[in-house]
């Protein structure tokens, strides 16, 4: 498959009174056509900053892209001027934001907001654009689009508003869609609908999707590949099966272990101790070392490189070095990994539907 987006060694920093906050510290990833890449991590791990940097939506100053390339179809987005960027935003790359309550303009009719991009990028006239808006609203599952497009955002419920945001993002058939926690503010039932909608549309348009979330359940649902971020770096990347059934990085173990599964066991949840590091002074060595019970002396001194597990699976932890002791993931996580694999095909599922 051809690479749609290729991010190489991206560094993003913010200059504050306290000093330089290194929000993103050398990130490499790519997205192919028709593929969904999920980026997971805690708040403050740099996942939103990474994607905002792709769109050049970071306020500069105080932010700046210190280093690195963002190749989109071979063009380096980091070097484009604001004017050139405007031609790409909303047309080739579009974004769905987390909060549907604040990402729509409350003083504009919903239809006009969707039309904006169509008229600007696709040079449509108003009649054509209006026709397309009706199609889009139908596509995202809003009933009675002709009258709904004349309404204001406050007349829509949260789930419906998020559908409008999805419609805006899809208006110009983008090649790459960036979804920044698109369902976090929504209820589970609505969340399931929006996720299904996005998958449907992806099948039709073959666009690439970058999906940011901290909900591993959502990741398992939508992603083809997963990148786990911690303290401004990608610590593990692989296919969704690699990450869920054969995780290698202790941080990924922690994330998986901290979620309770539905088939009850009263064992204590595996919590990651402590809290994420301060990126004003990133720690020396492995940033996760302070919270990592498997940390070795070398973790405090040197940063681990990316070790290859398989062709699709890479992880940055010294545990994969040939001289490292053989460490097994914590029991809770191991049981989960196995338990989940068998449970998926057992009877629980039939009854739930």
């Amino acid at each position, binding site marked *: 498959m051809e690479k749609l987006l290729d991010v190489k060694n991206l560094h993003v920093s913010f200059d504050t009174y306290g000093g330089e906050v290194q929000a993103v510290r050398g990130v490499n990833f790519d997205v192919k056509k028709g593929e969904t890449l999920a980026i997971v991590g805690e708040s403050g791990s740099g996942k939103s900053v990474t994607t905002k940097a792709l769109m050049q939506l970071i306020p500069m100053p105080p932010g700046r892209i210190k280093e690195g390339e963002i190749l989109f179809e071979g063009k380096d987005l980091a070097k484009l001027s604001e004017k050139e960027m405007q031609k790409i935003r909303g047309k080739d790359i579009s974004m769905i934001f987390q909060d549907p309550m604040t990402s729509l303009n409350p003083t504009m009719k919903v239809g006009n907001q969707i039309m904006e991009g169509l008229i600007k990028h696709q040079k449509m006239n108003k009649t054509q654009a209006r026709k397309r808006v009706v199609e889009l609203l139908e596509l995202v599952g809003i009933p009675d689009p002709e009258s709904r497009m004349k309404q204001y955002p406050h007349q829509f419920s949260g789930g419906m508003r998020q559908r409008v945001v999805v419609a805006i993002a899809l208006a110009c058939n983008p090649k790459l869609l960036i979804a920044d926690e698109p369902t976090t503010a929504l209820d589970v039932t609505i969340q399931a609908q929006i996720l299904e909608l996005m998958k449907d549309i992806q099948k039709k348009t073959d666009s690439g999707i970058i999906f940011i979330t901290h*909900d591993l*359940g959502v990741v398992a649902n939508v992603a083809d590949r997963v990148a786990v971020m911690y303290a401004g770096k990608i610590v593990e990347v692989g296919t969704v099966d690699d990450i869920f059934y054969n995780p290698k990085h202790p941080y990924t173990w922690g994330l998986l272990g901290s979620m309770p599964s*539905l088939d009850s066991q009263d064992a204590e949840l*595996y*919590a990651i101790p402590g809290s994420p590091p301060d990126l004003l002074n990133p720690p020396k060595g492995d940033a996760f070392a302070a919270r990592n019970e498997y940390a070795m002396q070398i973790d405090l001194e040197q940063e681990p490189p990316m070790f290859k597990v398989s062709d699709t699976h890479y992880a940055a932890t010294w545990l994969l070095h040939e001289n490292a002791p053989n460490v097994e993931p914590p029991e809770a996580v191991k049981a989960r990994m196995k338990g989940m694999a068998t449970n998926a095909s057992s009877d629980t599922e039939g009854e739930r539907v």
Partner: protein
Amino acid sequence: MSKEKLVEIRNLKQHFKTGRHSVVKAVDGLNFDIYKGETFGLVGESGCGKSTTGRTIIRLYDATDGEVLFNGENVHGKKDREQLKKFNREMQMIFQDPYASLNPRMKVEDIIAEGMDIHGLAKDEKERKAKVQELLETVGLNKEHANRYPHEFSGGQRQRIGIARALAVDPSFIIADEPISALDVSIQAQVVNLLKKLQEENQLTYLFIAHDLSMVKYISDRIGVMYFGKMVELADADDLYKHPIHPYTQSLLSSIPLPDPDYERSRERFTYDPSNHDTSEEPEFREVRPGHWVLCTTKEFEHYKKEHGAVTTS
């Protein structure tokens, strides 16, 4: 676990007037009991009235109708200061937003000790300090933290302060209104483990309100599912997840994304359509299986009984 009732909620109603002729029935006729030492989970979509229920039980709102019995005494109705104080000491609340629920101008020590001051639980300054430090250690903070202000803490730490404040007056019943929704996944596990530990140590009873169903399942003994101000299903946590009976519960459960790619690939979602219900009569809350209650009409009741009544709890 003893089956002694700690809280009994009888036909609780909470209506809000939103205009001269429009009334929002946020909570409309709730009946349930909470037993001593258990964790009762309350789930539902946003706007279904679960937070309003919690706030009405602790008397942050005056109930429109119905009563809340705590140890056999009604919480609502006319009370003098002394009686109120007694209830306030027994019942405490942990709020959703750890950023908004702590006074930014008070030191942590004073935040935690406020309840103790009101109830006169500390004889002198020394005892007060010692108690605060003890509480801080119970919730996993340092005693040096007592002299700091809330803005100096992270979200997870702030939620711990909120928990310490709730524990300060030695309550027997704690209402936790989405205590972990605002926290990161890794921190959520820390707070949930803490809540469980405290429950064992102090024999606490929890009402745990949340929309994160997998966490509710993990922490709760029994779970009530709310939909538009009414409880539609109530059962043991395991039973509810394994054998949901009400179609709304089924749809809710089928929508939870699980961290398991294989399961997600084969998942089929079930959509709830309220118009499929039998409308020949007002639905009532009935016991379909021992301990498993569902809101249904007579006809539906017969149907549910036939379909689910015989299934053994596995």
